[in-house]
C-alpha cells in the first residue's frame, strides 16, 4: 500500500501563483527523497499532505486518509519536522517532547515514556534534562526529529533535516534518518534541495520542479544504468588510450583520468591487460556510478561522474 498517493494535485494561491500542478504520485514505504529547488513546491506539498492546506485541484491520500476531510487523523499519525527553528530555548528537551507528545494525543504517562524513547532514539538520552537553549545546532535538529518521532508515527515528513549542519552533523543526521526508515520501519519522506545528500539514504526519489513532477523512480533504476570505470595512470595516458581504442573501447578523457564505459566484465580484463602490457604505473582505478543530479539536469552535457564511489584499486 502506498503511504502517500496524490492524483492531479494542484494548488493555485489566490494571488495567481501556481505552487503545484498536475502532481500524481505514489510513495511507497521506505525512505523517499523529495527533491526540488527552493520554491519548487515542496513546502506546499507538505502542507497539503498534512491537511493544513486544501488543494485547488485533484486529491491526496496519506496513510489511506483523504487530506481534505481527515486532516486530524492524518496529523495524529504523521510526524512533521519543520525546516526552520521552532524550539523554545527555555524548556528542557524532555519537557518539550513530552508536551508535544500529549498534543499528538498520547495520555500523560505514555507521553513521558514516548518522549524519553524518542530522545533516546535520536541520541539525546544524556542531554534530555538540559534546556534546549544550551544545545548545538545538531542537537536542536535532533530534538526536532524527536518531536516528530514521538508517538510512533506511521509516516515522517522531514523538511530539510540537514539544514545548518556541518558535514559531520549532516552525516549523523542522515544515518539517523536511514536507521529510522530501515530499522524502525517508519515510512519517511525527506524534502531537500540537496540531491547529492539524500540520495545516499533514499530508496526512492521524487523530483519536482515548478510545482510539477519531474521524475519519480526508485534510486537504483536511476543510478545504475551507466557504470563507468575511471583509470588514472602516473604517465603514458595517451598510450593507454590508444591501446584501448585499438581494442575497440570508447575512451573519454577527464582531466587526468580516462573514462571507460563498462559494457561487460571483459572490459576489466582488457584494461588490466593493457596496463600490464604497457607497464604503466597505475595510480587509481575506480568504479563510478552516474551521479543522480545529472539525471535531473536538463542539459545533460556534463561528464558522467563527479564523485568517486568505489575503493581505490592498486596493482
Amino acid at each position: 500500500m502506498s503511504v502517500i498517493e496524490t492524483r492531479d494535485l494542484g494548488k493555485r494561491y489566490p494571488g495567481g501563483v501556481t505552487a503545484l500542478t498536475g502532481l500524481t504520485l505514489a510513495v511507497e514505504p521506505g525512505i523517499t527523497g523529495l527533491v526540488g529547488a527552493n520554491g519548487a513546491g515542496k513546502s506546499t506539498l507538505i502542507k497539503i499532505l498534512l491537511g493544513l492546506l486544501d488543494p485547488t485541484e485533484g486529491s491526496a491520500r496519506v496513510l489511506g486518509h483523504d487530506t481534505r476531510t481527515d486532516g486530524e487523523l492524518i496529523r495524529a499519525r504523521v510526524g512533521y519536522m519543520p525546516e526552520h527553528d521552532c524550539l523554545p530555548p527555555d524548556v528542557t528537551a524532555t519537557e518539550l517532547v513530552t508536551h508535544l507528545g500529549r498534543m499528538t494525543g498520547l495520555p500523560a504517562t505514555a507521553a513521558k515514556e514516548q518522549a524519553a524513547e524518542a530522545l533516546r532514539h535520536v541520541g539525546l538520552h544524556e542531554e534530555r534534562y538540559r534546556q534546549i537553549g544550551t544545545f548545538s545546532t545538531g542537537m536542536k535538529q535532533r530534538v526536532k526529529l524527536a518531536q516528530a518521532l514521538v508517538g510512533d508515527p506511521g509516516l515522517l515528513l522531514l523538511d530539510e533535516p540537514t539544514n545548518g549542519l556541518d558535514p559531520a552533523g549532516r552525516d549523523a543526521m542522515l544515518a539517523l534518518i536511514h536507521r529510522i526508515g530501515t530499522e524502525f520501519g517508519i515510512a519517511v519522506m525527506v524534502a531537500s534541495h540537496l540531491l547529492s545528500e539524500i540520495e545516499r539514504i533514499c530508496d526512492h526519489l521524487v523530483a519536482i520542479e515548478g510545482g510539477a513532477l519531474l521524475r519519480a523512480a526508485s534510486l537504483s533504476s536511476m543510478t545504475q544504468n551507466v557504470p563507468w570505470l575511471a583509470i588514472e595512470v602516473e604517465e603514458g595516458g595517451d598510450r593507454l588510450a590508444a591501446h584501448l581504442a585499438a581494442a575497440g573501447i570508447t575512451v573519454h578523457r577527464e582531466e587526468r583520468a580516462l573514462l571507460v564505459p563498462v559494457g561487460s566484465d571483459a572490459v576489466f580484463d582488457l584494461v588490466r591487460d593493457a596496463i600490464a602490457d604497457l607497464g604503466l604505473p597505475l595510480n587509481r582505478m575506480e568504479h563510478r556510478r552516474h551521479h543522480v543530479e545529472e539525471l535531473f539536469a536538463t542539459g545533460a552535457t556534463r561528464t558522467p561522474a563527479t564523485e568517486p564511489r568505489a575503493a581505490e584499486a592498486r596493482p
Partner: protein
Amino acid sequence: MTTTSTTAASDGNGSVIHDIGYKPYTGTRLGRAHIVRALYFFSLRAAFGFGRSARARIIPLATFALMMLPAAVSIYKVADVGGSLPLPYTHYAYNTSLLFFLFVAVAAPELVSRDLRHHTLPLYFSRPLRRADYPLAKLLALATAIVLFEGLPLVAMYLGTIASSTSGSGVWAQTRDLVPGLLVALAYGLLFAPLTLLIASTTGRRALATGAIAILLLATTAISHVLESVGTHGDGPPPVAVTQGPGAQQGPDTNPPPFKETITYNGIARNGGLVDPLRLVEGTRIWAFHATDGNIPDPQGAGGLYAAELILLTGLTAGGLYLRYRKVGVA
C-alpha cells in the same frame, strides 16, 4: 552502557547512539477533545508560572499573594472586631485592579507570545489540533486563571467570615453578597482574557506585549477617571457645625443622618466608564444588580450600554483572536 546495546554509532557531536531497538507504540491515542483539554491545563498552569522556570512564577505568585492580603485582613477584622467586611466582595476586584493588571499583563504574553517568538506554532498545527483549537484552549485557560485570581480571595474571605459567623442568617447574608462578587470575577475572565490575549498575540516579544497590555489598561483607566472628574459636580464641603452637632453623643439611634454632599454627575461622568474595561464591568454590575454601592457614578439609563459593550468587546476580541490564528503560517 546497556547490555542490550547491539550497535553504537558515534555522531558528529561526540555522543553515542545506543540502539536497544525500536518499540512501536500500541497504547491509547486520544482524540482532539482530549488534546485541547491537555493544552488548556498546560496553559492554565503556565499562567501561574507552573511548568516553567522559577523566575516565571515570581510575578503571578507575588501578585496572587498580595491579592489574598485584603481577604486575610478582612477575615481578621470580622473575627476580632465583628461587623461587616471592610472590603465588600463586589468591591474587591475594583480596588485591587493594579495587581490584576500586573498579573494579566504577564500571564497573557506567557501563554501566546512565547510560541510566536520561538515559532513553535508549526509543531502544534502539524498535530491533530485545528486552527481554532489553539486560541480556544489559551482563551479558556487565561479566563480560568483570571477567575481564580479574582475569585479565590473572595472564596477565602467568605469561608473565613462564615467560620466566625454565629447565625445561619449571617451565613446566608454572606452567601448572598458573595455571588455578585464571583460574577464580577467571571466577567473579568470573560472580558480581559480575549482582550489581553489579542494584544499579546500580535507580537512575539513578551516585554512589548506586557508593556502594551499594561499601558492600555492603565491609560483607559486614567482617561475614564478624568472624564469622571470632569463630569462630577458637588455642592461644596459640608458646614462643620452640622456634622459635629451635640446629637452625636446620644447614641446611634438618635444620631442625625450624616451629612451627605449632594453630588451630581452629568452625561460625561456617567458614560465615561465606557472607555475603561474595568469600569465597564463595574457599570454593568451596578446596572445588573441595581447596586447603590458603585465605585463609579451610576450609569442609570446608560447601564444597558455598559452591559452591551461588555458583551460586544468580549465577542470582538475573541473573534479577533480567532482570525489572528487563522493567518498564522505553518510550514
